[in-house]
């Protein structure tokens, strides 16, 4: 009975990146959840603990506070695992495009963050935009890095995907 549910055709269907791109006609909410579910949970927990930290969590014992702080990172590791499985299930062309986009993302983010940090330390932003406080130019937060990586990934994916269309 079980074998009839898994035909050879189903098993050989490669993972398609478009299935986790919102707005594409191939988009599948279930596939997106399978790949990015842990990221969603990590974001919710991280956001909730960020809101609660100043009032509630700060009064908890140190071990509990450390646990609350570390839970999102454990969930992020689970997300990376599901992402790696997703990439492994792609066909060779899409795997090549995706890995190239990931390499581009990591390199571009590293380059941008280092460049930004050096300009910030040199006081360039403070000199140009005198109305802002120095603290507002720090991009070292997880949120900033994540947004930057997401942007770089989509940019990289578009660049490398165009080559094979």
């Amino acid at each position, binding site marked *: 009975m079980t074998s009839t549910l898994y035909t050879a055709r189903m098993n*050989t*269907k490669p993972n398609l990146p478009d299935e986790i791109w919102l707005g594409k006609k191939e988009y599948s909410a279930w596939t997106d959840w399978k790949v990015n579910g842990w990221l969603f949970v990590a974001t919710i927990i991280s956001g909730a603990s960020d809101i609660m930290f100043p009032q509630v969590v700060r009064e908890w014992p140190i071990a509990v506070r450390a646990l609350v702080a570390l839970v999102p990172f454990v969930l992020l590791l689970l997300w990376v695992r599901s992402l790696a499985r997703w990439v492994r299930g792609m*066909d*060779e*062309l*899409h795997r090549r495009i995706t890995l190239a986009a990931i390499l581009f993302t990591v390199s571009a983010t590293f380059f941008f963050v280092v460049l930004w940090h050096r300009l910030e330390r040199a006081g360039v932003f403070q000199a140009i935009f005198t109305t802002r406080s120095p603290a507002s130019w720090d991009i070292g937060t997880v949120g900033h890095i994540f947004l930057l990586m997401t942007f770089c990934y989509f940019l990289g994916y578009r660049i490398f995907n165009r080559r*094979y*269309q």
Partner: protein
Amino acid sequence: MKNKLRELRAVKEWSQSDLADKLGVSRQTINAIETEKYDPSLPLAFKVARLFKLPIEDIFEP
């Protein structure tokens, strides 16, 4: 790399999607191979050769 994939597929009257399903790859991969924008890996080239029952060198030429 030049190849005869499009001609072989036409003989069998398969669409790109049909061939992609049979090889376990995406339609974009078949299109990229046919338009010579992408060279398939050795395992995929062997799969193609086995599917059309031809030697690899009859389908792909450098």
